[in-house]
């Protein structure tokens, strides 16, 4: 229950950990767009250079970043099968009666796999080097300009940070309820499908009841401490960009520009 892969923060105290979350989020956005530019396989070289630099400075192991890919292997195989059956462009490789395999089936699958892999590595670097709360603060500051058109940036950030804050509390609660129900004879592991669903219900209903109860008490506590979502608030944590941030953003833009040029050649 404790190894939920939420992109865990690793307190490694590297140069990338200390970067401003705003610049890290912006860089991720730019790199995501770059990954999806149709620049051919050569276009991934600048991105790989960028990722290698990011991994080097964040002291993350490539295997750590790739771990998140494991559950996706079946999806990749499925994609390949579909592409082999459907793709009708490129050079004809195999032709057994009605069964024809074209080269594009493999290149298209390769594109998708490479893109997803790159995206996952980029996201892992972000979440592993940025505390959830800093990430929230970064999102809030980046959404600030949209407040003029009625987007409640601060409220969104507050909701995310409270949700993150309560994940461990609710995991504890789930374990407690599981033990309580198990001691009353509920079997969560064995039995037919209907029995299992019934067993899970006995877990979910009390969990929801207690979550609502907590939400109620939390709202009281927040109100008693003077919280008003519509009022202006000062902030304890202030974000500040340094030269590292500017350099990293420039690097990302260079990679983006290179791939954009590669699209035209």
């Amino acid at each position: 229950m404790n190894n939920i892969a939420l992109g865990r923060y690793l307190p490694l105290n590297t140069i990338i950990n200390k970067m401003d979350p705003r610049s890290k989020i912006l860089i991720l956005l730019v790199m995501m767009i770059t990954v999806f530019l149709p620049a051919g396989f050569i276009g991934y070289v600048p991105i790989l250079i960028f990722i290698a630099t990011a991994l080097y400075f964040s002291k993350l192991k490539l295997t750590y970043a790739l771990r998140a890919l494991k559950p996706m292997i079946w999806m990749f195989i499925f994609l390949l099968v579909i592409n082999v059956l459907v793709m009708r462009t490129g050079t004809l490789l195999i032709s057994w009666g009605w069964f024809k395999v074209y080269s594009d089936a493999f290149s298209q699958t390769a594109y998708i796999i490479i893109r997803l892999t790159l995206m996952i590595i980029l996201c892992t670097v972000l979440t592993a080097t940025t505390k959830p709360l800093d990430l929230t603060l970064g999102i809030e500051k980046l959404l600030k300009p949209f407040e003029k058109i009625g987007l409640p940036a601060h409220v969104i950030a507050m909701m995310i940070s409270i949700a993150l804050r309560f994940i461990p509390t609710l995991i504890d609660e789930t374990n407690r309820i599981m033990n309580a129900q198990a001691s009353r004879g509920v079997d969560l592991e064995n039995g037919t499908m209907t029995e299992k669903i019934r067993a899970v219900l006995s877990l979910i209903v009390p969990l929801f009841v207690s979550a609502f109860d907590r939400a109620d008490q939390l709202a009281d506590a927040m109100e008693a401490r003077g919280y008003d979502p519509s009022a202006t608030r000062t902030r304890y944590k202030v974000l500040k960009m340094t030269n590292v941030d500017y350099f990293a953003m420039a690097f990302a833009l260079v990679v983006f520009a290179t791939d954009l040029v590669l699209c035209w050649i």
Partner: protein
Amino acid sequence: MEAIELEHLSFSYDGQTDVLKDISLTIPKGSYTAIVGHNGSGKSTLAKLIIGLLEPKSGTIKVLGQTLTDHNLKAVRDHVGIVFQNPDNQFIGSTVADDIAFGLENHCVPTKDMQRIIEESAAKVSMSDYLNAEPTNLSGGQKQRVAIAGILAMSPEIIIFDESTSMLDPQGKASVNEQIRKLNEAKNITILSITHDMEEAAQASNVVVLDQGTIAAIGTPADVFQNDALMSRLRLDLPFGLKAAKAFQAHGIEIDAVMNNAQLVEALCQLK
């Protein structure tokens, strides 16, 4: 001017049965008042009414001379802090420092002053070493001390404790009770403590006993706890010191009716 004045206060959750019936109560500034009573006697409801989380059915609530209305609610809350029962459900920030900062942020304290206030408040509850700790790594007692620090940061005049120690282990209970007494003595903060813990009630300057929405008794701990008829009617537990003293008296040993363990030890040492 009194800290809290309640006049003919009634409250009902469903509009039919009154949880609080015509309560009138005055809590002087700088006093330490404990409210005791069984579950469902209306203790916690009273706390929520004073801080304006609930609206009374009838009667008035005056906090520091101001009658509570929708308009001055926020202004009044600047002076009143409340520590609730469940340590987890009032921890809003992701770290101790963030949680203490939450109230400061709401009150628009300038960012440059925050770090100093946070450090001072954490020091007052001996949590200075835990400023970057996350709530999952803290004990219940530590979380409640952080909650107190969050309130102290806003330098309130009144602090309400709503069964703040009932979910803590004995050690956490003792540390929070010690904290409450220190605040009352050193900083002259008015304390209103709603509690099941008779040891804690015994350290208060005043005790109010609530029974089924009405005030059953009010007075010093000595007055209230030595009212044998009342105590046995409401089946309230006595503080250990008093229980022991009564047991000694029953055996013909002459000893003063003491309220807490320290007094008991002293009285026993002076026995001839």
